[in-house]
């Protein structure tokens, strides 16, 4: 047994399976003369045929297991593979110069890649990546190097990778992929969030997994502790099999709480809600017994496509979610894009500090037509459920007033046109900028609710980029500075008879929950898979008792002290 590896616990659970390394092989190409160009062309044709056959299977599997939309990318790859302007010149050159196919492919495709990369349009630049992808596939066949596609996995494995790209993750099938380990990434990285959605254990940021783990080795992932064990002995396997049983049993126990309300030990009710990205996530929300949706991230509607979603497309998505929630509260966050979250078809200038730049509500107010389309779709959908609209990244009251004015204008237009709109839509804001937390008492007079977005609130308060691993020690949810801001927001809401929720990762954290309960938080919104665990925890806690500790907790001097204190009382 080799020494254990560790990383960041990104998704809970225990998995034991063989390792499957998702390699990104280095494909080196050298120029060589060939004796028989006709044979070389035949070899090239064979590689094209193999690559095409492979792409057709991947396209089919992706369409079956994921969606037609995700499969379309492979259709585009097939067209590149049969492009006469790419394939023709390659064959001509092999024939004219008696050079090897690999080299000719490299040179000819480089020409196109350079051309697309030079275009001043993000969308076209991305097409260069498609050509590279196809070239990699072709080269791998010519060189006899195997590249792997996650969709081809057909036995139970734990995937080990440097990182998982969104195009890798769309191909992961939870039936076979029992868990994954990546060398880079954090708890809020794309792959970590996906693991929680698929409910498979994952450890990210493991650093040395690719360097250490070989294909086919047995691997244990402990997604609770963020530990990885390679080549365990029989006793260790047995121990983890038991832990897995215990974990599964506990999960079954939590499942009994599915239709129960969330009541603290002293009889106080709080609302446990779930965060979602698309209507597809609804099933998980209902399965885990969430009492509402505390954050519907609408930006996913805008991503992975060529053009803005139309008003009708948005209306369909919002209506589906509202109908599915059947009258339960549903908080929809308006478009949070810009900065680090780019849309290929929206050509925005690069920024030095994307997290501090033109994004979210700032971008929506700068491009009001874009915003109005979303607001109209939301207003039209409002009659299908209990809609609450939330503006992200609000820094000043003026921004809220402007956003709300646009909403009121669109509402009046729809009503004039005889289109029904609900008249009980609450309009609130995300609190993720310290200025807004500090001014919460003033905001509370005008907004209907607050939802604290902790991921950003922490990074802006601590001035620490959450994507930068070198300052990740400053990502401190329990720093008393953060807790004091959270208290200001909750108190301000209650003083005006409004409610306060939280929709960051922190809301589902078992150290944070006792504090938030004591602070009087009304709504906790988290990954759907955390809801039942949180409900079981709140059932055991007395809100009044937790409240009695708050003054002491807020007077502590560090995040570590707060963690230690909470562990002592709960």
């Amino acid at each position, binding site marked *: 047994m080799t020494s254990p590896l560790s990383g960041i616990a990104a998704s809970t659970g225990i998995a034991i399976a063989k390792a499957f390394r998702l390699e990104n092989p280095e494909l080196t190409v050298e120029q060589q003369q060939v004796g028989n160009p006709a044979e070389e062309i035949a070899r090239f044709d064979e590689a094209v045929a193999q690559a095409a056959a492979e792409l057709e299977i991947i396209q089919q599997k992706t369409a079956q297991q994921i969606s037609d939309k995700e499969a*379309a990318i492979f*259709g*585009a790859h097939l*067209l*590149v593979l*049969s*492009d*006469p*302007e*790419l394939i023709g010149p390659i064959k001509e050159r092999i024939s004219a110069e008696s050079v090897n196919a690999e080299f000719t492919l490299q040179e000819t495709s480089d020409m*196109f890649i350079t*051309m*697309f990369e030079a*275009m001043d*349009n993000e*969308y*076209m630049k991305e*097409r260069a990546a498609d*050509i590279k992808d196809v070239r990699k596939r072709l080269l791998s066949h010519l060189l006899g190097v195997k590249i792997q596609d996650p969709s081809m996995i057909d036995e139970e494995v734990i995937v080990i990778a440097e990182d998982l790209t969104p195009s890798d993750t769309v191909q992961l099938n939870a039936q076979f992929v029992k868990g994954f380990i990546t060398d880079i990434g954090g708890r809020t990285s794309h792959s970590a969030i996906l693991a929680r959605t698929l409910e498979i254990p994952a450890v990210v940021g493991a650093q040395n997994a690719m360097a250490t783990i070989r294909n086919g080795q047995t691997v244990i992932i402990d997604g609770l502790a963020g530990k990885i064990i390679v080549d365990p002995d029989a006793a260790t396997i047995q121990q983890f099999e038991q832990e897995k049983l215990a974990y599964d049993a506990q999960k079954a126990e939590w499942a009994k709480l599915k239709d129960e309300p969330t009541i603290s030990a002293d009889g106080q009710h709080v609302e446990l809600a779930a965060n979602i990205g698309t209507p597809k996530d609804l099933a998980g929300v209902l399965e885990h017994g969430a009492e509402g949706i505390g954050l519907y991230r609408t930006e996913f509607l805008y991503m992975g496509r*060529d*053009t803005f979603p139309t008003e009708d497309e948005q209306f369909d998505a919002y209506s589906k979610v509202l109908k599915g929630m059947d009258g339960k509260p549903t908080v929809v966050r308006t478009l949070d894009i810009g900065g680090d979250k780019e849309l290929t*078809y929206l050509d925005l200038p690069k920024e030095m500090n994307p997290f501090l730049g033109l994004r979210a509500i700032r971008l929506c107010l700068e491009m009001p037509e874009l915003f109005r389309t979303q607001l109209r779709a939301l207003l039209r959908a409002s009659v299908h459920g209990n809609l609450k609209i939330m503006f992200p990244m609000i820094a000043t009251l003026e921004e809220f007033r402007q956003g709300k004015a646009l909403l009121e204008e669109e509402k009046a237009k729809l009503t004039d046109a005889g289109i029904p709109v609900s008249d009980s839509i609450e309009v609130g804001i995300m609190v993720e900028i310290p200025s807004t937390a500090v001014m919460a008492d003033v905001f509370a007079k005008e907004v209907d609710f607050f939802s604290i977005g902790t991921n950003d609130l922490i990074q802006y308060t601590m001035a620490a980029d959450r994507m930068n691993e070198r300052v990740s020690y400053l990502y401190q949810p329990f720093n008393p500075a953060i807790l004091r801001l959270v208290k200001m927001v909750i108190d301000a809401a209650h003083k005006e008879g409004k409610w306060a929720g939280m929709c960051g990762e922190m809301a589902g954290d078992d150290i944070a929950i006792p504090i938030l309960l004591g602070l009087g938080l009304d709504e906790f919104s988290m990954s759907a898979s955390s809801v039942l665990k949180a409900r079981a925890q709140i059932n055991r806690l007395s809100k009044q008792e937790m409240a009695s500790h708050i003054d002491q907790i807020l007077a502590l001097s560090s995040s570590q002290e707060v963690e230690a204190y909470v562990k002592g009382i709960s």
Partner: protein
Amino acid sequence: MVEKQYTITDEAGIHARPASALVGSISKFQSDITLGFNGKHVNLKSILGVMSLGIASGSTVTIAADGTDEEQAMSKIDEVLKAEGISNQ
């Protein structure tokens, strides 16, 4: 040879999905088919060629087909341009 001009009405210009549909639908024709825009001409059977022109909404393009099945090819192109919402004329 037959030749026809079109104005691109898709608000996003000619982008990947409709371009794929167009290129995919004419690959079976024998005729040489070109797409002309801004003085440049590319093979309409080449997805990379079509995309490389970066054609924006409102542009006028010329499509020409030359060969034994040029008429059939042109009517297919007409049909796909309309069906995909690339051009309505």
